[in-house]
């Protein structure tokens, strides 16, 4: 049984509890709709057949009446269902046979084509968006971006959901994110495709299709790529932030990006108030590559740590993969073949170029041309050199010399590395083989890479080396089969693996860990590998797509400021060594989610009784609380005090629990016990008040 019985609430309940200005707990909605195609092997079951994409998160956190979206990842694995978009007319692709049902019905043959036993949609590729129905996205106050890969769905969210908030991201995330989006838009827009298939999406028809199309989720919500105009508008909503910058949200919550060590400008986020701290860890790396190292210390003392974006290939060691990459590359080139590296225009490519910079001379490759082809190749290479502040220490010190931090500047200067916006234009003149080509898109569905696959696929001398871990390489290759070209799979994913995670959790010791459900069990293909899951105490709380989760902590305190004038008037008394108390009576002011205590106003002077007061004016407000009392009354001293104040004729009787003090003349009786005092008297207010004040002298007020 869960210790938190209300673990799974539906959203409606959450919202109800959100209504008050101060909500006692924090709710977290997880909005990512499952990416299907990259993880076919996952078990299917339950209402939501597939799980969310743990490395392309899109979550919403509700915290102290603030609605915060954490990341905005776009699942592009949906594009693997589509035919590649060739830059140059490809007879092979255009002559693929249409697909027909078992009974020979071919009404779908315009939309679906068959290639080596796989069926593909012949249409403009479409992307699987984050869930937009679970929560009204126009209520999102801010979006926090952790790295440039996790912002690719931004235009869909900011432009089409009524979103009016602010997006926070670091400058490198924004600049490189823009390049990634620009490249994507360019890849898709420069190959206009007349056809937009929709027939196959019909639920009744989809049932009849072969896997994986049959099992694709929410195909009706798949969308075509955004336009550059939408990209620009989305990016204009971003406010730049720096690491360790404290950003106040509505005076209620403070968010802070921290270096996560994974990519240029990549960040984890701290979301905190004065008494609660949520850490959002997304795409972090402890390896020393080009970015600034991960800031682990600032994650300490978290109530909840949300952990996403771990390595997608937990069994592969990135260093080993780089080695394999280099040796396979050298081998192919030495045999006169060409090497194709499908890649994103930023990120791991910087590290690969740096490795090659050190490697090519010793491997005798100095005469081999390296081509980097992308509409944003030049920008990516230039931008990498100006973000010194976001780089690891070694690279930072270079700019003091001053030298460019990345050695690809030298590769370019010496003409070993050449970059082109596309295969058209200058490239066709300069193109020499054998060569090495870095180009996108890693899905092999669009971009210049399609051309090279068609060009080099038939020769076994050539090699395609997969380094990006986002797409299953077998599925990526499916529409190119049969293929003679060698395929090498060297996925380089520098994000945290499970050993590093357990070390990290030991180090920062969060009270609770929350993570995608995939991380709480070994991968289905390696179900015996109990080491390939998160192991922590208490066990991590898991979530899956379209689920709402209550985070396991109660808010108990809120910051309030005591004005100096009030503070001066407080009288602290020491109760125990080191512990003092003071009773406070003050006026509470609340503005912009900030609470301030001010001194109570001086009692208004009676206006002289000019006006006849109404009876109700005299009735005291029962909401005015008197302080609580504590302590006990020493009888002897009390009697002495009474005598000092003119009472005579005092008689003290012992009782079972205490004493009775009798003031015989005044017919007054005071029962004194350990924890109570009872004054019984005639209706003589003056007397009563005198006695009251004498009793109070012996008691502490709270």
């Amino acid at each position, binding site marked *: 049984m869960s210790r938190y019985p209300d673990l799974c609430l539906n959203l409606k309940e959450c919202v109800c509890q959100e209504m008050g200005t*101060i909500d006692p707990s924090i709710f977290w909605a997880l909005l990512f709709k499952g990416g299907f195609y990259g993880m076919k092997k996952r078990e299917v079951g339950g209402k939501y057949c597939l799980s969310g994409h743990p490395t392309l998160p899109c979550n919403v956190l509700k915290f102290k009446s603030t609605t915060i979206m954490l990341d905005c990842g776009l699942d592009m694995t949906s594009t693997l269902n589509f035919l590649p978009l060739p830059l140059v007319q490809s007879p092979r692709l255009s002559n693929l046979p249409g697909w027909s049902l078992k009974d020979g019905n071919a009404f779908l043959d315009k939309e679906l084509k068959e290639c080596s036993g796989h069926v593909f949609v012949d249409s403009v590729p479409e992307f699987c968006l984050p869930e937009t129905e679970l929560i009204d996205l126009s209520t999102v106050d801010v979006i926090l971006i952790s790295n440039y890969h996790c912002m690719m769905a931004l235009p869909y969210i900011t432009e089409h959901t009524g979103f009016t908030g602010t997006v926070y991201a670091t400058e490198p995330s924004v600049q490189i994110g823009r390049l990634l989006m620009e490249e994507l838009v360019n890849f898709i827009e420069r190959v206009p495709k007349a056809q937009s298939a929709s027939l196959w999406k019909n639920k009744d028809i989809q049932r009849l299709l072969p896997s994986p199309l049959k099992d694709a989720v929410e195909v009706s919500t798949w969308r075509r790529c955004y336009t550059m105009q939408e990209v620009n508008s989305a990016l204009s909503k971003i406010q730049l932030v720096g690491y360790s910058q404290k950003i106040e949200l509505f005076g209620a919550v403070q968010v802070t990006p921290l270096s996560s060590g994974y990519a240029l400008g990549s960040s984890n986020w701290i979301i905190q108030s004065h008494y609660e701290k949520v850490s959002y860890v997304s795409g972090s790396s402890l390896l020393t590559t080009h970015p600034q190292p991960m800031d682990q210390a600032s994650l300490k003392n978290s109530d909840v740590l949300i952990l996403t974006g771990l390595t997608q290939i937990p069994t592969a060691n990135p260093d080993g993969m780089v080695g394999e990459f280099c040796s396979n590359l050298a081998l192919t080139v030495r045999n006169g073949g060409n090497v194709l590296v499908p890649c994103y225009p930023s990120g791991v490519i910087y590290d690969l170029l740096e490795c090659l910079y050190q490697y090519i001379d010793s491997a005798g490759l100095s005469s081999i041309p390296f081509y980097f082809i992308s509409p944003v190749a030049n920008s990516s290479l230039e931008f990498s050199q100006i973000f010194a502040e976001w780089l690891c220490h070694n690279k930072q010190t270079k700019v003091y010399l001053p030298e460019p931090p990345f050695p690809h500047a030298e590769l370019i200067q010496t003409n070993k590395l050449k970059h082109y916006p596309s295969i058209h234009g200058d490239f066709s003149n300069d193109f020499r083989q054998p060569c090495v080509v870095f180009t996108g898109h890693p899905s092999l569905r669009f971009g210049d890479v399609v051309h090279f696959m068609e060009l080099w696929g038939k020769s076994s001398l050539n090699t395609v080396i997969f380094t990006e871990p986002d797409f299953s390489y077998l599925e990526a290759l499916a529409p190119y089969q049969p293929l003679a070209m060698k395929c090498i799979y060297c996925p380089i994913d520098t994000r945290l693996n499970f050993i590093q995670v357990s070390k990290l959790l030991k180090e920062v010791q969060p009270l609770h860990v929350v993570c995608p459900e995939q991380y709480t069990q070994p991968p289905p293909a390696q179900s015996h590998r109990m080491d390939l899951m998160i192991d922590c105490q208490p066990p991590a709380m898991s979530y899956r797509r379209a689920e709402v989760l209550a985070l396991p902590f109660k808010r108990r305190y809120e910051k309030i400021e005591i004005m100096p004038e009030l503070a001066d008037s407080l009288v602290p008394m020491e109760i125990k060594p080191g512990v003092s108390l003071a009773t406070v009576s003050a006026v509470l002011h609340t503005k912009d989610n900030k609470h301030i205590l001010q001194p109570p*106003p001086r009692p208004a002077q009676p206006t002289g009784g000019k006006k006849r007061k109404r009876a109700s004016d005299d009735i005291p407000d029962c909401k005015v609380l008197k302080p*609580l009392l504590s302590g006990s009354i020493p009888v002897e001293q009390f009697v002495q005090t009474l005598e000092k104040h003119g009472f005579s004729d005092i008689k003290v009787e012992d009782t079972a629990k205490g004493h009775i003090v009798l003031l015989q003349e005044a017919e007054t009786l005071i029962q004194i016990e350990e924890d109570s005092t009872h004054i019984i008297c005639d209706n003589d207010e003056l007397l009563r008040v005198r006695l009251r004040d004498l009793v109070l002298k012996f008691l502490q007020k709270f």
Partner: protein
Amino acid sequence: MPEIRVTPLGAGQDVGRSCILVSIAGKNVMLDCGMHMGFSDDRRFPDFSYITRSGRLTDFLDCVIISHFHLDHCGALPYFSEMVGYDGPIYMTQPTQAICPILLEDYRKIAVDKKGEARFFTSQMIKDCMKKVVAVHLHQTVQVDDELEIKAYYAGHVLGAAMFQIKVGSESVVYTGDYNMTPDRHLGAAWIDKCRPNLLITESTYATTIRDSKRCRERDFLKKVHETVERGGKVLIPVFALGRAQELCILLETFWERVGLKAPIYFSTGLTEKANHYYKLFIPWTNQKIRKTFVQRNMFEFKHIKAFDRAFADSPGPMVVFATPGMLHAGQSLQIFRKWAGNEKNMVIMPGYCVQGTVGHKILSGQRKLEMEGRQVLEVKMQVEYMSFSAHADAKGIMQLVGQAEPENVLLVHGEAKKMEFLKQKIEQEFRVSCYMPANGETVTLPTSPSIPVGISLGLLKREMAQGLLPDAKKPRLLHGTLIMKDSNFRLVSSEQALKELGLAEHQLRFTCRVHLHDTRKEQETAVRVYSHLKSVLKDHCVQHLPDGSVTVESILIQAAAHSEDPGTKVLLVSWTYQDEELGSYLTSLLKKGLPQAS
């Protein structure tokens, strides 16, 4: 009473050797550590013995902050850290960290190699000093220790120039360093949020100047350069290697390109190319336009501007030369100046401020016969032009920044006393805040009254807020609670919770008053009458008549009993606890007045 204390060791009613000590909430911070270009004796460095005469500086200072790389802000740093001795952290932005050691080395070379000074800091000292530097990013909150935090804002003045917020708890000071409120050809404008510091320490170089539009100044400058070159004259522009130099280079480069001029432009010293490299690598610190277009065309790759060779100074024909340093107090600019000063066809344009004592200052104040070393007299026939290209905020800009930050007090440094006086009045009039302008060694003390942050239990706060958010001006509602102070942990909780937490029992104080009432009826009936009377009077209270015959008002209990002696009198026993004191007291007095006759 807590207070903030500020003592300028330099830049107090003066420009040069900026160095300001700030004490805030028990923390001591030194802002800038500059040298004075007008002096070459002891006065060129701040008097650090003011901080401590015997102890180590490290024990007295929590940190040092350098606002930008100009020598009047960082020139004394190696002397301070390595010769006087300071091992604590020195904070500056990354471009400052990159460029500052180069300028220091340059300065050292001129002082030691050219002037032959002994007892100057060495190259190694510069290196050791820079090892103590911690780079600060814009807007990053740097935790110097558990309490002291600093944050940098963009200042625009030169590459990497920053303003700093120094904060301890709720008290804060902002130091502007040098800043510029108008974007120029390569830098953006200074910006700060409405951070409402207790004190804003601002530079006031141009306290009285309202500069004409930048475009006019630029046109003027270009016109003068153009005219001189056209008539075959030589133009000397003394600059510092980094800063205005790049600005003017961009200006001339674009002009040369547009007009198609052939006369060569040179930039003196080997530093130039290196300097431009820094600008290329620190593009994010430049202005919007350069950042946007740098991939296509890096503005710091100049086509028309070539490196200067000493021999060029004697070549005939027109030319434009940028030479360092900017105040003509030493080095190449002074050498060229001496060569060209005699020819009236030539022109020297001073694009920035010159401190007293420098050749630059002398010629700008109209002196035309200069006494040089070795009793030589140099007659200046060349035209002398002053053109303010210093990227300092003018009076309007300073007022603008004060408006942005909304400080409680303002303190002026880095300016001349007379001009400060004028600006001080203006600030006090316009913003209704106190403005100070201490001289060097003079201390300004500002009492502060920081509010005290405590944690209030959510239960207590909710109870309070449930009664309505808006305080009623006529009937302010009071919040009652107990403040528990344990070590430095302050929590405000409800009294019940405080007692519980401390393991203390509540002491109940109860009153029972006998109220005699003339009533011949039975006790039960008296009780009914009491009930209906109270019910009608206390409309807002919960009045109940219980089955056992007693009456309650909220938690106050009233019982009617027969009088032991007088059957015509009933005794009402009214019993309440101290928490209901007001209501209980009110009830007894109400009941004492008797009950209304039954109708």
